[in-house]
């Protein structure tokens, strides 16, 4: 029986997921920990539309006239900035959270299309370094696996202050994923529930960060671009402080950004949407006179070329993907639906990355499960997806008359909702009204 067809009414306040959460809490006495990112509905790039060319603008010929996609990241201070073929990068995800095969696949896929991938909490693996043409090395509060040889072997360094799924929170990796190899890389006992610190151990605040960045530059002889990554909260101020601290690149991760293991309450209730953060970041860079000199990477819920084009139009230099990249590798694939159901989930719903029993072999350290993922094939799937994203963004940019993705601008956008118009600071479609704008 379908309850609604019999006149039964579900509470909007106490919906089924809420009722289940209360029941689960009552049974276990501890908060829910899961992977993925925010699942609630949020203002997002879907709420923006691009204005294609017509009488007042002329479009570029699809497939014939060039629409370039290259991007240089880290040109402010670094001797060797990253030169990427497409402005979509792979966000930081750790070996430990992900299998070695998944990390290798990310490297292969990114390298196939000339973009970068990123390490995560837990250090750099040889598989990842070996298969990544451009590898960004994360410098995290835990400093698990941190060593100067890997720092020098990286193509860029990303100082991580936070991530969109949990700004202000540290990492966690539950015991079932702390295998001998993972534990060895992190100098931890095998099988414990690992906590990562939420603050860096040897600096606090932006003045200290400036000195920390100086040290990292000194150790690497000023060769590597230094990124600063923040979870989206007080983005306007954070971006300004990151620039003052000396960042070459600022990475802003909105609350839709994914995680391998975080409390559900944290994922859903801390941080601001990517759409709200991005214009703040751009405004901060513009006010400091460094927009485009300090590059901006935006992540958190980027799913395709439309999201990428709209983010670039709002002023980002590149976007980063995490969850979407895992889906491209094979995460949540229908062929594993029966196994997802055995775990109490289903294809399209699976978010138990913390659990280590991922049938797709991606968010696991179980050797048999991990062996299911062929890094070559999965890497190629990711490359295909990145190509599609880039082609989609080019299609949209050409329609707006742009010869480079970076020529997209806020003027090319309108908003479908008052909320998104206020956040993105573009007019509500069909009007010239930007809520909150001072004329």
């Amino acid at each position, binding site marked *: 029986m379908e309850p609604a067809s019999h006149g039964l009414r579900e509470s909007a306040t106490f919906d089924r997921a809420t009722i289940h959460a209360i029941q689960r809490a009552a049974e276990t006495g501890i908060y829910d920990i899961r992977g993925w990112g925010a699942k609630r509905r949020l203002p997002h790039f879907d709420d923006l539309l691009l204005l294609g060319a017509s009488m007042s603008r002329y479009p570029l010929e699809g497939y014939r006239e060039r629409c370039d996609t290259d991007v240089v990241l880290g040109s402010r201070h670094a001797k060797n900035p990253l030169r990427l073929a497409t402005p979509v990068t792979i966000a930081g995800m750790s070996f430990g959270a992900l299998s070695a095969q998944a990390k290798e696949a990310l490297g292969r896929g990114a390298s196939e299309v000339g973009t970068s991938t990123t390490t995560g909490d837990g250090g750099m693996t040889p598989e990842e370094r070996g298969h990544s043409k451009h590898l960004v090395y994360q410098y995290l509060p835990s400093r698990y696996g941190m060593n*100067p040889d890997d720092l020098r072997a990286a193509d860029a360094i990303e100082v991580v202050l936070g991530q969109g799924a949990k700004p202000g929170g540290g990492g966690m990796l539950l015991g079932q994923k702390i295998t001998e190899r993972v534990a060895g890389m992190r100098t*931890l006992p095998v099988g414990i529930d690992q906590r990562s610190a939420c603050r860096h151990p040897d600096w606090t605040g932006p003045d200290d960060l400036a000195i*920390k960045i100086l040290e990292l530059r000194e150790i690497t002889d000023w060769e590597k671009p230094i990124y600063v990554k923040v979870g989206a909260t007080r983005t306007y101020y954070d971006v300004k402080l990151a620039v003052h601290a000396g960042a070459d690149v600022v990475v802003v991760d909105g609350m839709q950004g994914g995680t391998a293991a975080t409390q559900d309450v944290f994922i859903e209730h801390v941080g601001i949407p990517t759409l709200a953060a991005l214009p703040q970041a751009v405004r901060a860079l513009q006010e400091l006179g460094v927009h485009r000199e300090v590059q901006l990477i935006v992540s958190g819920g980027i799913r395709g070329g439309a999201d990428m084009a709209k983010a670039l139009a709002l002023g980002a230099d590149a976007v980063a993907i995490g969850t979407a990249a895992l889906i491209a590798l094979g995460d949540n694939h229908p062929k594993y639906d029966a196994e997802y159901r055995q775990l109490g989930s289903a294809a399209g719903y699976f978010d138990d990355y913390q659990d280590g029993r991922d049938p797709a072999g991606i968010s696991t350290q179980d050797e048999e499960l991990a062996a299911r993922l062929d890094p070559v094939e999965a890497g190629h799937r990711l490359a295909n997806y990145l190509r599609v994203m880039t082609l989609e963004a080019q299609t949209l940019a050409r329609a707006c008359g742009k010869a480079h993705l970076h020529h997209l601008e806020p003027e090319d956008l309108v908003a479908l909702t008052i909320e998104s118009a206020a956040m993105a600071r573009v007019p509500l479609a069909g009007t010239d009204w930007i809520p909150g704008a001072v004329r």
Partner: protein
Amino acid sequence: MATLIDLAETPVRELNQALHTPSTATWRILNPRGAHAVACGIREDLAVEVEGHVGYYCAGMNQHATVTVHGNAGTGVAENMMSGTVRVRGNASQSAGATAHGGLLVIDGDAAARCGISMKGVDIVVGGNVGHMSAFMGQAGRLVVCGDAGDALGDSLYEARIYVRGTVKSLGADCVEKEMRPEHHAELAELLKAAERDEDPADFRRYGSARELYHFDVDNTAAY
């Protein structure tokens, strides 16, 4: 003959570049005057004498070198050291030896808060006192305190071992006093000798992890 670098005349950048591609094995650095990132990122077996006070991150990420600071050191001296020896003749500010994976850090004077925070295998010997939250989340290695320890020593400790000769103001979550067995007396004696200290190992007490917070548990919610 030591290579002489005067930081009153030479930028730190030039110093570090020279130390990364060294032409000699011994170095003497004058007039550091609190400069940051002095002698960081060295990867060879050099002997570096710093004649004065240094700022943040002196000898950061050191590999193989022996760096001696004839003065005080700012925040994060020898942070993330992998190997070698760093010695501070004076006092050290907070986060001395933070996250260091190996080597020996000796501080003849006092060390401020968070000494040995998140230590991952380094040995640290402090001649004086250490501030609060020292060895916070210490994963591996040994911290020896010849004086007193401040509040919350060894909070959320993993497998690092702590020896304190004086008083401990308070222990952090999951840190407990443990029995000094013969092997602990022996390793402490070795550490004191390496640090050129003459304290008697018999005067120290040992602290380590109770390992009760290693797994998330309903009964531990007060500690989370």
